């Protein structure tokens, strides 16, 4: 097993055990092959690899959006593979936050309504969830634009709203799939500053994927994967379309 900084610590926050993910599209395609990995609380981890390497698949599996073909995934020592769809939805609602490459805000809701959406699902009373959503927007610097709809916000602003939505319900980990891929370098850097700030100041654990060297350089730990397997960083460097 190759690990970015390889440090074994106490009980892992997330444990990926010999996970394989295969898709059947005419022929059997293996997206992940027997991958094992651990993530710990408070990390700011990047998953690096070229397109098609399995980064998004890994994040989807960790995020319980998809189930592995073989192997198992544990969150805080609890096995999540095998839970029912409803149990998984509840698990995501309570413990996970998501940031997507395409922002994926709900178009008809304003920034603050998008931010409070997880709390709507949790049944948090309206005044409390509004206060917490405004607080989250303040922490990403968008309090003034709280009532704008996504179509009235720039890409960077939309992604900040997505960050606010991902952390507003105090999850144990935020999973971000190529969060800066659609942003220009300046906005991307600002977003990373924001995420890093939340990591250091609030102890929020981030796992994000990217193949942008500038983004990866900000991570405290980088996990390299290629063709569904973990690779040694040196191999990754050597890869023609790999990361620096």
């Amino acid at each position, binding site marked *: 097993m190759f690990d970015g900084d390889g440090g074994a610590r106490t009980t892992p926050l997330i444990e990926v055990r010999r996970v394989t993910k295969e898709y059947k599209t005419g022929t059997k395609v293996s997206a992940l092959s027997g991958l094992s990995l651990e993530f710990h609380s408070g990390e700011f981890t990047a998953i690096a690899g070229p397109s098609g390497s399995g980064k998004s698949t890994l994040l*989807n599996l960790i*995020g319980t*959006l*998809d189930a592995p073909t073989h192997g198992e995934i544990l969150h805080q020592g609890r096995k999540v593979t095998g839970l029912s*769809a*409803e149990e998984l*939805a*509840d698990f*995501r*609602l*309570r413990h*996970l936050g*998501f940031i*997507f490459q395409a922002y*994926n*805000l*709900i*178009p*008809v*809701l304003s920034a603050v*309504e998008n931010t409070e*959406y*997880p709390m*709507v*699902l*949790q*049944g948090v009373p309206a005044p409390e969830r509004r206060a917490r959503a405004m607080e989250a927007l303040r922490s990403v610097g968008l309090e003034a634009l709280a009532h704008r709809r996504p179509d009235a916000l720039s890409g960077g602003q939309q992604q900040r709203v997505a960050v606010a*939505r991902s952390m507003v319900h105090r999850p144990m980990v935020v999973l971000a799939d190529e969060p800066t891929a659609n942003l220009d370098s300046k906005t991307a850097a600002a977003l990373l500053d924001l995420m890093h700030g939340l990591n250091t100041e609030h102890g929020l654990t981030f796992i994000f994927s990217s193949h942008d060297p500038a983004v990866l350089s900000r991570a405290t730990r980088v996990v390299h994967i290629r063709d569904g397997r973990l690779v040694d960083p040196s191999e990754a460097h050597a890869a023609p379309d790999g990361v620096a």
Partner: protein
Amino acid sequence: MNLADAARTGLVEIRAHKARSLLSLAAIAFGVAAILYTFAIANEALTKQREAFNLVGPGPIQITFMQWRKEDDKSLRLSRGLTSDDAESIRLALPWVHMVSPVLDTWGEVRYKFLNRWSGLLGVTDEWRKRNWVYTLRGRFFNKSDYETGAPVCVLIEPGGWAKGKSAEARRWSYYNDEDIDGLIVHYNLLNQEISVNNTVLTVVGILKDPPKDKDPRWFKSDRGNNRLLVPLTTAQRYFNNDNWRSDKPVAERVSFIDLDTGSLATVPAATRRLQSLLDILHRGEKDFQIVDLRQEIQKKVNEMREHALTILSLGLLAILAGGVGITNVTLATVYSRIREIGVRRAVGATRMDILMQFVVEAMLLGLLGGIAGVIIGLGGLLFVAEEGVEKLGYLVWWHYLFTVFISVGASFVFALYPAYSASRLDPTEALLYE
């Protein structure tokens, strides 16, 4: 997600997609309007039936004279037809009967000053006042002496106009026709004046005023408004026995029909049987009369109204069905256009039930809005399109509105279930990748 949050999100979605929402709402609304109209008609039928039964009395029967048609005249001329003697015999044979009212129904040419008009004319006895008395009287009605002597007196019936002068029918037709007898009665104060009817001079001793046409409880009578002239039966038989069925040997006591009231519904069948035997004897076996249970006649009219209501109801239900299919279609389209959003919601933690509820509640809100719009359209339609709309509105009660809206919401719920279920079964990863 609780219901209030689902409703709030639903409203946001409806507002965000106005055109789409409006289209599916419209079909539902028209269905609701049609159902509301059905309620108005059905309730009108019931109310009018009740009023009519009260008016015609508890045991109404009518004996009508059935003249043989010329081409199949099989009469041996053994019967004198229906006469006031028959009425007398009935009175003697069935003394417990509440009313026996022989009527001679004919016509006459009325002349007053330089005007002449045609009118239906009824020769009546005092018993006539026991049925369908809906009038207000100026002057007097006939007295005993008038009946006994066949006095040359008459009572006119003045048209009652319309309670709500602006109804569509009243606008289209003047409420009376100036060119016929109505105009003469309305424009000239004929009380205590002399008029000539078929060259017989009669004194107008009283004027009865009809109730307003739109409030007339005699809606089931097709001949109302035709007869504007009343004279004592004896007078009619003496002066206006002009349409006699036996021109070779006129029957002086001829009447056109005899109205009876047995006094209770329970006695109608027995009375009908006894009348049948009695008249068979009096008419010497000739089948020249018919005994009609007037309640059945009213019932027949009510049934016609109900059939009309059922037709409209089926149209309304069809419109709701079309609206429902529209809702299915619109909800399916909404689901397909929001697949990615559904993926996001599922990823963030929405359960399948949350997604199902969201789309169902959204459709039900559309149904609710469509229902309310339908009630408004229905009321508007009744007021401005239907002829008798103003009158029909009065037959709607609060629960009719509530029930139609409930039907609309219920239909929306049923028709949104399938698309909402499809949405709830979407795989979050695939939904997130959907372009």
